[in-house]
């Protein structure tokens, strides 16, 4: 079998590639395996899933590398307040327990997201219509604040005043929306 990456050297390594929890077999040569190393995991049989990918990703992070248990300082295990999932448990299962986990494991999450989503860590897509109402406005406010800064720098104070009024109106709207949210 020929390596499917370079189509030149014979494939000596047979892996299972995991993307979004779905398996695909990969046959590549050692050189290509080294280059693509982090995305390929050794075929671990049927019990294979996204957590192996996560475990593999985490091993790359400095500080996570094969630390011997007895040399590791006793530290409090990071645990989600809401669902009580610990970070090692997350790595083992590959799935979060609740929405709060995203906040709890924020610092650990960024490198994982970067690898899985080609360097992206923040959302640029749909905003839910109803609960997202204030989010829309806050985004608008942030944009306006940028414009305001520019006007002030350029000493266009008349324009700046206009923008400031618009920001104030929007901020009132956000506050109203948030109160409404609490009541329901």
């Amino acid at each position, binding site marked *: 079998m020929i390596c499917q990456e370079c189509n030149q050297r014979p494939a000596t390594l047979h892996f299972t590639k995991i993307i979004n929890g779905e398996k695909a077999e990969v046959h590549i040569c050692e050189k290509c395996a080294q280059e693509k190393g982090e995305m390929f995991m050794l075929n671990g049989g049927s019990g294979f899933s*996204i957590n192996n990918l996560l475990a593999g990703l985490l091993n790359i992070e400095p500080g996570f590398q094969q630390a011997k248990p007895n040399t590791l300082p006793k530290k409090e295990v990071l645990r989600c307040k809401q669902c009580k999932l610990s970070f090692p448990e997350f790595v083992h299962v590959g799935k979060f*327990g609740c929405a709060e986990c995203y906040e709890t494991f924020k610092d650990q999450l960024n490198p994982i997201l970067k690898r899985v989503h080609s360097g992206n860590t923040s959302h640029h*897509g*749909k905003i839910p219509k109803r609960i997202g109402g204030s989010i829309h406005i806050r985004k608008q406010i942030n944009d306006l604040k940028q414009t305001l800064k520019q006007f002030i720098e350029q000493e266009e104070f008349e324009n700046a005043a206009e923008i400031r009024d618009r920001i104030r109106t929007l901020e009132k709207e956000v506050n109203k929306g948030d109160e409404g949210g609490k009541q329901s």
Partner: protein
Amino acid sequence: MSLEHFLENAASSWMNEEGPDSDIVLSSRVRLARNFKDFSFSTLFSQEEALEIINVIKDRIKNAEIPEIGKLEFLQIENLQPLEKQVLVEKHLISPHLAEDSPYGACLVSENEEVSIMVNEEDHLRIQCLFSGLQLNEALLRANVIDDYIEANIDYAYDEERGYLTSCPTNVGTGLRASVMMHLPGLVLTNQMNHLVPAINQLGLVVRGIYGEGSEALGDIFQISNQITLGKSETDIVEDLTSVVQQVIAQERSAREALVQTSNIQLEDRVYRSFGILQHARIIETKEAARCLSDVRLGIDLGYIKDISKCILNELMILTQPGFLQKYAGGPLRPHDRDIRRAAFIRERFELEKKDNSEGGNTP
């Protein structure tokens, strides 16, 4: 049950319709992953939470009249027979995970089976829309309609920075998985898939066979889907995938042209041999059936075979799987008996096609 009646009940609308570029793209699918706010994800939720999710979504959706979608039938997985579950999986309406490993799983399916919503799978909700041909935009629009309808009453787990929160971080952000199922016999016969797959992977897309195990792609049917769900808008994800698919379509078409030009008679021979096998074999395994069906479908597309409908590939790839064969047989079958049944089923299906044509001839 007669075969005609069975087919009427068994086939989903996407299998019979001919969407854009349906000579190469068999179907387009969009899936949105959503979770309820203030509930644990399915990995950790309690029975009470799971049942509440089912009740809330049932109330919201069951008798709803969503424009262009109509009524959705509610099915609780624990109430289904093993064979019924298998059939839903074979039709791609639910995932194997929902069928086997989701104790509180349920699903809602539209009458034409274009829309299915899985409940309590890996995420609380997975909204899926399945269209014939290359129609990712249409599928996304439809999925958004359902998403908005649900969101009007239900708070989703959503974060300003991370977007829609999903139990697995590989789905976070848009929660969108868009995929197309493509029939690529030309690229397989000309050995081009080996080069194409890594090239497509480099674009952040995933290629895999959907029938068969591991790297084999039975019936020369491949699925291409997006890997990245975070940092790109839904429209961009769908447009990027569409443009890659269009390039693959162009390559498949030119591979077919090249095949016809260089080895017309060999190709025609291959097509007709497979046609003969399907019409006359008495025992046929999944693998051989898939290969022959792929050849015959190619033969139809190239005009060698006339009077056989194109949907025969879609339909028979799905309906000759073990679950469907056993449903048609009315009970469990051993593997060897399945191969006999499969051969019989395919023969009957081709007979039906001939009958339809002669009837069609009488009423022009």
